């Protein structure tokens, strides 16, 4: 476990992706194949089910340390991670146990059907034989997830560096159907269990933000105008009756969207299409917040499928019947895409609408109206453009709606998780409702580390509660909150829901007297 523990330490301390990749490569070079396979399994969500309940672990810690429960919880609130809290609270080990990663995992798998007493004996022995950092890892192996900033993509890049095999092929391999018991490390990397020819994606073509006057783009007739959507950009591949969905981050997300897989399987022919995966209910596009409920789930339940159904807005056609169309013009690709869809229909696949316009000066109105149906703005694509590799200036432009903003006061602060667990990073904001305050948004992003540090200090001094993870604070700090949309909502006490709220800036120049009222916030709904 020492190697694995050192790897985790090395990875989590750095925020440089290359350093993480190097640490992974070094690890892969020294450990047995079984350990490598388990590492890949752990980092790709193939974790064995939890053998010991959290509550049992907590009760054993209280028994060993003789600490009152409230102090355990207070420690947990300060550390922000249960496995780590336990590791730190336990007394120093009296023993030293060294076993490779895969042995630990196999033992934990075997532990699952045992009695609580047997589990206790095993876990206590392990705790007493491991240093704090290894203990933390051991606790993580039992339950929690490793939030250490290693994406599948990082893992794949490390494997690519180690083996020289194409990263996308490796992505398919590690996502594919395998288990550490059923395959050797070399076979996994070589993709013996998959057919990469079927899943191979193309690099995405990306747009720049519009930075010039529309008039300078030239003739209106040369441009294809579409709405811009805020979902998951995806490349959907259907080859030889197999369907794959790649995200823009080059991760295979096929399993997350079973209804899309089913819909695409119904279409005739082999093709690669580019589109936006969106939460769509009764033909209306929902907010990104809704779609988020569908992301990174190990299991997509029936309930979730009904609650947040997804659909695809199709933008482009990159390959048809094994022919690469990327050097064809946008206009031709669009024509073929429309033909493909004319042959086929599906309830959840939508062709991205090409907006008819005659004059550049119509676009401003169109853009401002976009928000009302949850579009992010407009896309301009030159009709002669190829499907480029990555970002190339000049052919594709995005023109987003300006965000809406309000001034609100912070009323609750909570510590973050992972890297942010030591600071108050998650805030709740309120606006005035007559002489009271009413919550309108939670936001986590938009501040610099220095601002977060300063606010954390302020929270420590100005918190009304002294215990627990959430701190009610004096309503004093004012922030400008930006968001993409606003709608009436019955679920929220304030009666409004903001779409993608984030902190635009800390308004040190304003006091709680200057914040918006719920009426002025609601007025934004009418205005948009």
């Amino acid at each position, binding site marked *: 476990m020492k190697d694995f523990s050192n790897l985790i330490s090395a990875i*989590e*301390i*750095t*925020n440089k992706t290359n350093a993480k990749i190097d640490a992974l490569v070094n690890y892969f070079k020294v450990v047995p194949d079984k350990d490598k396979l388990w590492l890949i399994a752990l980092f790709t969500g193939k974790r064995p089910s939890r053998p010991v309940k959290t509550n049992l672990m907590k009760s054993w810690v209280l028994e060993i*340390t003789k*600490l*009152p429960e*409230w*102090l355990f919880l*207070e*420690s947990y609130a*300060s*550390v*922000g*991670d249960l496995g*780590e*809290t336990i590791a*730190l*609270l336990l007394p*120093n080990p009296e023993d030293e146990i060294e076993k490779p990663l895969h042995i630990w995992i196999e033992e934990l798998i075997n532990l699952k059907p045992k009695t609580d007493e047997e589990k206790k004996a095993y876990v206590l022995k392990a705790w007493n034989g491991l240093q704090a950092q290894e203990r*933390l890892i051991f606790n993580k192996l039992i339950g929690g997830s490793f939030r250490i900033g290693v994406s599948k993509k990082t893992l794949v890049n490390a494997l690519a560096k180690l083996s020289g095999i194409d990263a996308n092929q490796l992505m398919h391999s590690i996502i594919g159907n395998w288990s550490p018991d059923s395959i050797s490390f070399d076979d996994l990397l070589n993709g013996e269990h998959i057919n990469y020819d079927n899943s191979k994606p193309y690099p995405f073509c990306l747009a720049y933000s519009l930075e010039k006057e529309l008039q300078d783009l030239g003739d209106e007739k040369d441009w294809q105008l579409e709405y811009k959507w805020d979902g998951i950009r995806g490349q959907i591949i259907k080859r030889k009756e197999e369907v794959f969905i790649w995200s823009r981050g080059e991760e295979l997300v096929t399993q997350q969207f079973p209804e899309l897989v089913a819909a695409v399987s119904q279409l005739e022919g082999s093709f690669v299409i580019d589109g936006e995966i969106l939460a769509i209910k009764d033909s209306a596009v929902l907010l990104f917040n809704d779609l988020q409920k569908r992301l990174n789930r190990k299991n997509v339940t029936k309930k979730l499928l009904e609650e947040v159904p997804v659909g695809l807005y199709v933008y482009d056609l990159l390959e048809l019947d094994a022919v690469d169309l990327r050097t064809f013009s946008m206009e031709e690709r669009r024509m073929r895409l429309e033909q493909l869809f004319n042959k086929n229909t599906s309830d959840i696949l939508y062709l991205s609408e090409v907006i008819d316009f005659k004059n550049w000066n119509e676009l401003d109105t169109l853009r401002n109206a976009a928000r009302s149906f949850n579009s992010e703005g407009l896309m301009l694509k030159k009709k002669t453009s190829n499907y480029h590799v990555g970002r190339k200036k000049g052919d594709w432009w995005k023109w987003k709606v300006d965000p809406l903003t309000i001034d609100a006061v912070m009323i609750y602060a909570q510590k*973050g998780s*992972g*890297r*942010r*667990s*030591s*600071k108050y990073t998650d805030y709740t904001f309120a606006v005035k409702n007559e002489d009271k305050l009413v919550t309108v948004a939670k936001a986590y992003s938009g501040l610099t*580390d220095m601002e977060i*540090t300063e606010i954390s*200090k302020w929270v*420590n001094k100005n918190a009304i509660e*002294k*215990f627990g993870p959430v701190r009610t604070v004096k309503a004093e700090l004012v922030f400008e909150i930006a968001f993409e949309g606003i709608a009436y909502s019955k679920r929220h006490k304030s009666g409004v829901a903001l779409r993608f709220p984030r902190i635009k800036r800390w308004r040190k120049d304003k006091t709680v007297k200057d914040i918006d009222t719920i009426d002025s916030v609601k007025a934004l709904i009418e205005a948009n």
Partner: protein
Amino acid sequence: MFKSVAFILKLVKFTKKGIYCIPGKFYLDPWYPVDYAVISHGHADHSRYGNKHYLCQNDSKAIIKHRLGKDISIESLGYNQPKNINRVQVSFFPAGHVIGSAQIRLEYKGYVVVFSGDYKTQPDFISTPYEPVKCHEFITESTFGLPIYKWKKEEELQAELTNWVLQNQQNNRTSVFLGYSLGKAQRIMKLIEGVDDIYVHSAINNLNNAISGAGIELPKTTLLNYDFKKAAIQNKIVILPPALLGSRMLKKIPNAATAICSGWMHIRGNRRWKGVDAGFSISDHADWDGLLAAVKATEAEKVHVTHGSQAVFSKYLNEIGIEAHELKTEFGEDEFAKDEETKTENA
């Protein structure tokens, strides 16, 4: 009996300017200017500008003069060398926090109050080890007042830092430690003495000079000038004040591997927050067991808990049968960020 309770309340009182000794007519580590300040140690949040007169432990004198000015009115005492001020007997006892750090003991008509200042119960290689002092009332800090804080022994830390430096050298990297210039810097110097040449920032160098000038022996170091030669320090050891994290000077150091040394580094979230290459949990404050042992050793009837986890620690003390109260002070809680003086020197 009744009478003695009456004056217990009068020996010290907690005021806006700081902890005030009523019969002695002086303040302990005041945070606003006063006529007579008794100082526990040289850190900026405990010894502040503007007091008319200072009294401190002998080893702190040079440090405080260095930081607050040569012309301040200051006198000093050795450890356990009492002085009477308005019939209050004042004496200093080792606090084990940094060089010259002291607990302040006040005795008046047989009643004893001890103010811990900042303290660390575990010995290091450089400051005079902490000594428990029996008292009726104990005013304790609680910076790391949670049971998750458990420090490693000095020998283990020595091995950890040494290994890190050696590993960096194998990878052709220069080891840069970030630590508070008074206390942490000297402790790091002592922990890695003899591993390789140590270069220090001018803020640390100036303090080192003040400390050695007072007759205390420190490991050999070299001043890191602003126009240093990169080749000279490649693969060596550099110690900088924490304020220089992200500075141009740090960026100029060839292949720097950076490490923060602070008790807060005990928690992963903190190590990851700072975006450095390593975080060593090295603190000059008492850990949980240290705080508890210290409180118990004083046999105090009443404990006042100041800066840090005062709510948690005093609640716990009350539960185990020790009367404890929270006390709001303006001493810094952030062991890492209180390096005020270095910022001005580099401005």
